[in-house]
C-alpha cells in the first residue's frame, strides 16, 4: 500500500466551489474535491448532502452553474458524459447501466469494439480481451453471455472492467457496495486497490464506515451541499466524521411535540419478499412517530411499498386496527386509513402536469363525487382549503405543481393524504431536496399530525431528522430489522452502528 505524498502531487482531478441549482433548489453550493493519482478517496455525507450532484458534475451529466474544474491542473468544461469519459473519468453508478440485450464483452467495448480484418469487429479479440480483463479482476464471468439476468454485483464488476479497459485515470463509484454481499465487497475492494496501485485516482461514496476506513486513503465530508473537510484516513475517528456529517444541534431544529401515544394502529408481522427483505415485524401506535433508519438499499422503501400494497410480498401480514389489509392493493390500504408519501416526489408523489387542486384531491376522487359526478366547485374549494391550511405558495391552485418549489410540492403531497383523514401515514424521505426553511415546516406538520393521534412511520436517511422527530427508531440493514432504539437512548452513533455493522456481529 503506497501512501500518496499529498504535498507534491498535482491532483489528477480537482473541483473547487462548484455550485448547481435546479430552479429554486440549490443541490450543490460549494462542491470541492481533489483527487490525487494513486489514492482511494472516500466521499461521505448524509443523504441530500450533495454527493450525487457532485458526482454528476464530475461525470459531465450536469454542467455546474459556477466553480473551477481542473484536470491535471488545467481547466476543463464538460458538456456531455462522453466528454468526461474521453477525458479519462469513468463513473459507476449505484444502478449499473448495462445494455441488457448485449453480451458482457460487448457491453465493455460498446462503441469501440476492436476491429480486425476489413474493419469488421473481431469478436474473438473482443472475447479474449474481456476474458483477460476478468482474469485480472479474478472473476469468473462468461464474456459471451448477455447482460440481462446478471446480478448487480456482476454488473458492477463489468462496469469496472469497462473502466479499466478505458484506461480510466479517475474511477468514481457511487455507493458501489450498497447491493453487494460481504464476499463481493471484498472482491471489489481488491480490484480497487490494484487499480490504485497502478496510479488511478479512485473516488467512492459509501455510508459504511468499516469500508470507508478500511479502504480509503483520504475522506472528504460534505453537508448541505457544501464541502466540510478532507482528512487523511489515519488521522480521524468515526465519531469525528459523524459529527461533521450531522453538524448541527439536533433538538433545536426538529421540535417534536409530545403526543399522547395510544394503541397500535399499524401492525406488520413477518413481512418478507424474496431477495428484498425478510421477517419484518413492528407496530406503530396512535400518536407515535416511528423512524425507520438505515442505509440506502437496506430495504426500507421496499417495506413501505409492500405495506401500502404497491409491491407484492411473499410472507407475513399487515394489519390496520387489527384488520388485515389485502396484499397488493393500494386502494384497500387507503380505505383502511393508510397514506404514503413516497420517496420520489416527482415520479411517484405527484402528477407534475396537473394542477395543485387536482393533485391535492386525487385521493378524494370518489368522495368528491355526487351521483358519480365530480362537482368542480367542491373540488376547487377542497383544493384551496388544503393549500391554504398547509400554506402552499402558488400563484394559483390551477397552476401545474411542476411550477412549485420542492418544499411546496411536498406540501401538496402531504395535503393529498391529509385530505383522506388517515390513521397511519408513511412518509418516505419527506424532506429530501427541500430547502431548510420549508423543511422545518414539513417537520412541524408531521409532528402536528402525530399530536392529533395519527400513527406516523417515517423513513429518513437524515440522521438528525430521525433523531429529532422519532419516538422510536427502527434500523434496517440488508433487508432485516437490526435494532429498535428508543428516543431516549438514540444517538447518531448508535443508529449508524446498527445500520452499518455486519450482520454476524449483531448482538
Amino acid at each position, binding site marked *: 500500500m503506497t501512501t500518496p505524498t499529498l504535498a507534491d502531487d498535482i491532483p489528477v482531478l480537482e473541483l473547487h466551489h462548484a455550485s448547481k*441549482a*435546479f*430552479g*429554486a*433548489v440549490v443541490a450543490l453550493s460549494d462542491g470541492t474535491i481533489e483527487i490525487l493519482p494513486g489514492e482511494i478517496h472516500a466521499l461521505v455525507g448524509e443523504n441530500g448532502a450533495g454527493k450525487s450532484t457532485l458526482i454528476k458534475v464530475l461525470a459531465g451529466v450536469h454542467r455546474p452553474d459556477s466553480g473551477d474544474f481542473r484536470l491535471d491542473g488545467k481547466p476543463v468544461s464538460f458538456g456531455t458524459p462522453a466528454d468526461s469519459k474521453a477525458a479519462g473519468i469513468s463513473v459507476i453508478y449505484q444502478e449499473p447501466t448495462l445494455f441488457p440485450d448485449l453480451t458482457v464483452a460487448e457491453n465493455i467495448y460498446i462503441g469501440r469494439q476492436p476491429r480486425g480484418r476489413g474493419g469488421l469487429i473481431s469478436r474473438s479479440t473482443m472475447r479474449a480481451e474481456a476474458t483477460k480483463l476478468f482474469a485480472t479482476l479474478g472473476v469468473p464471468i462468461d464474456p459471451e453471455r448477455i447482460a440481462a439476468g446478471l446480478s448487480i454485483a456482476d454488473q458492477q464488476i463489468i462496469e469496472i472492467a469497462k473502466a479499466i479497459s478505458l484506461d480510466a485515470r479517475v474511477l468514481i463509484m457511487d455507493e458501489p457496495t450498497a447491493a453487494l454481499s460481504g464476499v463481493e465487497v471484498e472482491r471489489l475492494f481488491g480490484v480497487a486497490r490494484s487499480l490504485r496501485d497502478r496510479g488511478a485516482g479512485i473516488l467512492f461514496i459509501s455510508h459504511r464506515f468499516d469500508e470507508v476506513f478500511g479502504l480509503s486513503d483520504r475522506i472528504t465530508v460534505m453537508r448541505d451541499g457544501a464541502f466540510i473537510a478532507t482528512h487523511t484516513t489515519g488521522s480521524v475517528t468515526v465519531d469525528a466524521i459523524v459529527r461533521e456529517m450531522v453538524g448541527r444541534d439536533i433538538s433545536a431544529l426538529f421540535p417534536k411535540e409530545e403526543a399522547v401515544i395510544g394503541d397500535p394502529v399499524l401492525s406488520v408481522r413477518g413481512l418478507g419478499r424474496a431477495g428484498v427483505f425478510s421477517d419484518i415485524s413492528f407496530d406503530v401506535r396512535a400518536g407515535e412517530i416511528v423512524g425507520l433508519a438505515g442505509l440506502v438499499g437496506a430495504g426500507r422503501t421496499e417495506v413501505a411499498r409492500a405495506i*401500502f400494497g*404497491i409491491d407484492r410480498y411473499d410472507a407475513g401480514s399487515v394489519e390496520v386496527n387489527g384488520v388485515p389489509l389485502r396484499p397488493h392493493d*393500494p*386502494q384497500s*390500504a*387507503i380505505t383502511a386509513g393508510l397514506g*404514503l408519501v*413516497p420517496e420520489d416526489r*416527482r*415520479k*411517484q*408523489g*405527484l*402528477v*407534475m*402536469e*396537473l394542477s395543485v387542486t*387536482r393533485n391535492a*384531491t*386525487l*385521493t378524494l*376522487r*370518489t368522495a*368528491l*363525487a355526487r351521483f*358519480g*359526478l*365530480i362537482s*368542480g366547485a367542491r373540488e376547487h374549494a377542497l383544493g384551496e382549503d388544503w393549500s391554504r391550511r398547509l400554506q402552499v*405558495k*402558488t*400563484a*394559483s391552485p390551477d*397552476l*401545474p*405543481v*411542476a*411550477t*412549485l*418549489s*420542492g418544499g*411546496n*410540492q411536498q406540501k401538496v403531497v402531504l395535503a*393529498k393524504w391529509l385530505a383522506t383523514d388517515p390513521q397511519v401515514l408513511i412518509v418516505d424521505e419527506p424532506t429530501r431536496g427541500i430547502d431548510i426553511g420549508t423543511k422545518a415546516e414539513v417537520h412541524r406538520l408531521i409532528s402536528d399530525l402525530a399530536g392529533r393521534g395519527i400513527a406516523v412511520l417515517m423513513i429518513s436517511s437524515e440522521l438528525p431528522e430521525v433523531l429529532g422527530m422519532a419516538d422510536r427508531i427502527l434500523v434496517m440493514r440488508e433487508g432485516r430489522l437490526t435494532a429498535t432504539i428508543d428516543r431516549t437512548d438514540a444517538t447518531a452513533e448508535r443508529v449508524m452502528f446498527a445500520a452499518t455493522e455486519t450482520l454476524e456481529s449483531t448482538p
Partner: protein
Amino acid sequence: MSERTIVRSGEGVPATTAGTLPVRVRSRWTRILLSRDAVMFYALIAVVVYAYTQVPYFASTQTVGFLLLDVIPILLIAMPMALVIITGEIDLSVASTVGLTSAVMGVLFQAGVPIGVVLVLCLLLGTVLGAVNGFLVTALGLPSLAVTIGTLALYRGFALVVIGDNAVANFPQELTRFSTSKLGDTGIPVVMLLVLAVALVFGVLLHFTPFGRALVALGFNKEAAAFVGIRVGRAKFWLFVSTGLVSSLAGIFWTLRYSSARSDNATGIELAVIAAVLLGGVSIFGGTGSIPGVIIGVLLIGTINYTLRLARFSDVVLSIVTGALLIASVVAPSIAEWARGRLHARRTARLELQRAAAQ
C-alpha cells in the same frame, strides 16, 4: 407507446417558486379563447365559412346530412379512442372490429336469427374483442401497439373467415332507412342523437367523474397514479373493452347505413380516427386531451374531406391530406416545444453572459 422519448415539461422544467419566476395568470376569457380547443374551433369555423362561400353546393342541408353520416363511425370510435390514447395506449384494431361485427351481423341475420338478437350479439362480440385486447395489454403487459397490430390482422382475418367474400344486404328496411333518416328538415341524421349520447357519456366520464380524474392522472404518470390507489391495469382494461363495444356499435351503423355486411367494411378507418383524435388535441404521450377537442378534430377532418370532395378534388388528395394532418398534429407540439426550448436556451445564455460580465 411503452417508451416515452420526450422529456415532458413537468419532468424537464426545474421547479421554481412562484416568487422567483412570475407566472402569468391570464384572465378566464383570454384563457378560454386561447385554449387549444378554441383554436381548433376557429379553424373549423374558418373551413366551414370558406366552404360555405367558395365551394359550390356546400351551402345546403344535404351537406350537414351527408357530412355527418360520413363522420359518424369515426366520431363514435374517436370517443373511447381518445380515452385510450390519454392513458398512453393505442388501439389499432378498431376498424377490424367494425369489419368483424359487420360480417357476423350479416351471417347471423342470414341464418335467420331475429335482428334484435343479432344486434345484442354484435355488441357482445365487440365487448369480447375489446376485452381480448385489454387482457393482452394489461394482464400480459404487452405493448398495445404491437398487440393491436396483431388483432388488426386477426379480427379482419376472422371477418373473412366468417363471411368470406360474400355480402349480406337484405336487412330490414325499417332499420336501414332509420340509419340514414334525418331529423325533420334540419338534415341532421337521427342517429346523431345516439352519437351525441355516446359523446356525452365519454365526455362526462372523462371530465366529471372520479374515473376520468384517474385516467388523466395515470396518463401523465402511471406510477404516481398507482400511489394514490388507482388500479391502472383495470382502468385500461375497461377502456379497451369500451373501445371494442363502441366499435361494434359503429359496425352495426356501418352495416345498416350501407345495407351491406361485408368483411372489408371500414378498412383503414383507424387512421382517420387516430388522426382526428390527435388533431383534436389528445397527446400521443398520454395525459392531455378533451372530448370537445376531439369532436372538433373529427368534424374538422370530416369537413375538410367533404369540402375537397365537393370541390372535385380526387380521393388521392384526401388520403394525402389525412396522412399529412396526422403527422402535422403530432409533429406540431414537438416543434413548438423545440422552439420554446431554443428561446429559453437563448434567454438563459444571455443571462449567463450578463452574469459573467458582472463578475
